[in-house]
């Protein structure tokens, strides 16, 4: 594969950024109930990051300004339908002096597609430390992700570049190319040694990856809804491909 030279950083696409901001500007339906719009996507389901961002905005609408979000945890339950809006239903779990907690259910067609719990804190002082920033190339020296996909023969690259015009993504490297071993995320792609272990009962029955179409062994009445298409794409041999696939599949 011929590796392209990095191209100059693009001028920001203000129209695309405005569209992103508009996505985050939810309509208020009632107290603690909001509606988020969708944009056209050729990908068949809503991008997970959009649902997370809109759900977070719904939570933020229900807390006083002096509380800032410091964490969120969420699960993707069902693929989002890009052809209709998404309803965000906020539940006030805790209203404390220092901390507030909100849970947001994202709903479409009467079913929950996503759940988020987020925590908000009144600003305070405290201990401060951090890891050092890794030694990396600046953005202008990284390859543009869309161009990289294009070079790699991804026919969706151009369409993806248009749809994601609000984002600039520059490839820095992965554990195979471009990144130094750092003891944490370095080239430790080892399959662990097959040492004997004392087995637990009911340890990992093997199900082929391709066999998700078969449905058996489920307790009657357990399945109330259709199965989820799982959020996230198949893993690829390297990170750029993986990022691109996630972008395509999410």
């Amino acid at each position, binding site marked *: 594969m011929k590796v392209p030279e990095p191209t100059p950083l693009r001028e920001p696409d203000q129209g695309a950024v405005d569209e992103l901001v508009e996505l985050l500007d939810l309509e208020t339906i009632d107290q603690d109930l909001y509606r988020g719009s969708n944009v056209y996507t050729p990908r068949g389901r809503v991008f997970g990051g959009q649902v997370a961002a809109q759900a977070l905005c719904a939570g933020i609408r229900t807390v006083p300004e002096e509380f800032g979000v410091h964490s969120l945890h969420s699960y993707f339950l069902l693929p989002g339908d890009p052809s209709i809006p998404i309803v965000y239903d906020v539940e006030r779990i805790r209203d404390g002096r220092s901390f507030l907690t909100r849970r947001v259910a994202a709903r479409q067609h009467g079913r929950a597609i996503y759940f988020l719990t987020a925590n908000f804190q009144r600003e305070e002082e*405290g201990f401060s*430390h951090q*890891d050092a920033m890794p030694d990396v190339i600046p953005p202008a020296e990284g390859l543009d992700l869309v161009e990289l996909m294009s070079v790699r023969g991804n026919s969706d690259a151009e369409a993806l570049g248009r749809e994601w015009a609000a984002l600039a993504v520059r490839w820095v490297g992965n554990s195979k190319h471009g990144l130094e071993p750092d003891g944490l995320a370095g080239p430790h792609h080892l399959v*662990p040694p097959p040492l004997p272990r004392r087995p637990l009962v009911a340890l*990992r029955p093997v199900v082929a990856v391709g066999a998700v179409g078969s449905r058996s062994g*489920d307790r009657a009445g*357990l399945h109330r809804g259709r199965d989820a298409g*799982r959020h996230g794409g198949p893993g690829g041999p390297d990170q750029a491909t993986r990022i691109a696939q996630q972008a395509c599949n999410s």
Partner: protein
Amino acid sequence: MPRDVGELLSLLDLETIDDNLFRGAQQDSVLPRVFGGQVAAQALVAASRTTDPAYVVHSLHSYFLQPGDTGAPIVYDVEELRSGRSFATRRVLARQHGRPIFVMTTDFQKPEDGLEHQDAFPDDVPAPEDCFDPQAGRGEELSEWGAISMRYVGSSADLLPEDPQRPGRQRFWLRIDGELPDDPLVHAAAFAYASDMTLAGAALAPHGYRLGGPDIMIASLDHAVWFHEPFRADRWWLYDQHAPRATGGRALINSRAFTEDGRLVGSTAQEALLRRARESSR
């Protein structure tokens, strides 16, 4: 707090009140509030009780909302968020005195095969028998933790190799001290229980403070666990803790659990509230 394995198992054996509604017992404790790992472990057991055993827990995310009262049992209310073909999701609300004290969402997966890799087991970790036992020589204060053995490997403030890039690090060997039954759920719940221990120490190491000191107030804000694969919680596992950032009264601690034979079997992430005692008012 469980003084032995039997007491730990009785904590995990919830009483069924109704469909999707359970009650967890308490044990005598010198702690002023319920230990977070106990609530997380009991909530996980409650969620599992409502899930087809063909599905295995692979992750949980939770927030601690209010201090738990050690003098009253805890009610666990389970909501079925999804019962899909490959995945089942449950939300558990832990309640006392009519108020939520803890909320957890947890996901179960029908086991499948896929890509596999893992980080390497860290270099230069001494064996558990060569490490310091922080419980040795301490009296009643720690005897109520008798169900869990720990060995201190070190922190970035003392025994760990220097790494200026990562100032907040700590390692412990941990295990349930005694034989647990073979049920994988028991081991997952026991891991969830013990995984809430010692974490703030990694975040305090760069600041000259130690866990348990009178001058510091610590609370777990949230707790997330990924169960990569089943393992025995009653054999030694290395708890390799890394606190990449502290600011605004909060610190994040990312941790990995390795078995003695080098398998990366679990990961956790927790944000802890760290206050000097004089700042403390919640």
